[in-house]
């Protein structure tokens, strides 16, 4: 089985991902937090990344978070992304996911601690 090196551009963190492993799961298993973790099921869009270089395969992802066109441009959800080479990726959460700032969040930010 091949192991590949995944590098996230913003954090400059690298980790190893097995050929048959999803990138987000590999990151979590190394105790890293360079990509935000959401549903882990291809639905919520918070772990969206853009693949800058490298080859990969994708499982089914929500078209609301990664459209067919965006997928062709190299966007993917890290929880559905399997490498077939070393990858350079960049976090790019779906606008839908990051617009998900609630009235609750606004009230909370004034008053309570947030675990990032």
């Amino acid at each position: 089985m091949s192991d590949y090196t995944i590098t996230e551009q913003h954090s400059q963190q690298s980790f190893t991902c097995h050929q048959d492993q999803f990138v987000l799961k590999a990151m979590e298993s190394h105790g890293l937090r360079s990509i935000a973790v959401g549903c882990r099921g291809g639905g919520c869009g918070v772990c969206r990344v853009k693949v800058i270089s490298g080859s990969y395969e994708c499982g089914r992802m929500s078209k609301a978070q990664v459209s067919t066109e965006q997928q062709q441009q190299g966007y993917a959800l890290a929880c559905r992304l399997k490498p077939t080479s070393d990858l350079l990726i960049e976090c790019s959460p779906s606008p839908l996911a990051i617009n998900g700032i609630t009235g609750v969040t606004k009230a909370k930010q004034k008053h309570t601690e947030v675990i990032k």
Partner: protein
Amino acid sequence: MRKGVLRPGHIQLRVLDLEASIEHYVELLGLHETDRDEQGRVYLKAWSEVDKFSLVLREADEPGMDFMAFKVVDDSTLDSLTADIEAFGLEVTHKEAGDLKDCGRRVQFTAPSGHVFELYAEKAYTGKWGVEETNPEAWPRALRGMKAVRFDHCLLYGDELAKTYDLFVDVLGFYLAEQVLDPDGNRIAQFLTLSMKAHDIAFIQHEEKAKFHHASFYLETWEDILRAADLISMTNTSLDIGPTRHGITHGKTIYFFDPSGNRNEVFAGGDYMYPDHNPITWKAEDLGKAIFYHDRVLNERFLTVLT
């Protein structure tokens, strides 16, 4: 005031992979598949429910909730509520009997929060799964996974909470069980009920309309919640948070995700309400404790991970 809306009836969820979802809801939650239709939709129910289905799964390109339905007492009430919803200013769509298999005609409308709801009066009464109506045993012996007792409620994220409150309270006859108020007195969360349950539907203020937070299924005890946590680990299911207790409702809970990222909850216990009870108020500045009573801090995922 009661308007003839009885209880939550069903929810239709979109999933990316139908077979993986069926395995999740049947083998892990312990629901029972009761039918499929020509559109490929799959119908499921929890064992203690008397009608044919409470969960419908539909394969689609994006996960989330298509609609949530409430059962009303009879057909004439369905007519009068339809008129009341139209008078409130919403458009209604009529779905013919049989559009959902073995379900009577349904009336659909979009709440100000952006979510689609529907009302219906008739659905095939198949009785509780695995137990008789006369001299019933305590529970069926062939239950799987978490042995979910019933589909219980949904939490939905959207805007226009005040107008949504008016629709649910003034038109549909829910009452307010619990609320979260911000320092300016705005209601940013509302937990509404038709019954003695702490919530039959809940809404949290969110800038984007029509987002789905979770569908919740009832378990009997805290021990059952811990056992559910064991099963989540045994199956490597994506965990959100728990086991823990909520401040709001005081229910014991664990959150996890289905294979398409739709959030599920199983919960046990919780407060009871009667219509003469004053609503319970939580302050937004204490929201950590209100949502997660033990940790007393919110995790970002609870507020932002939605389908």
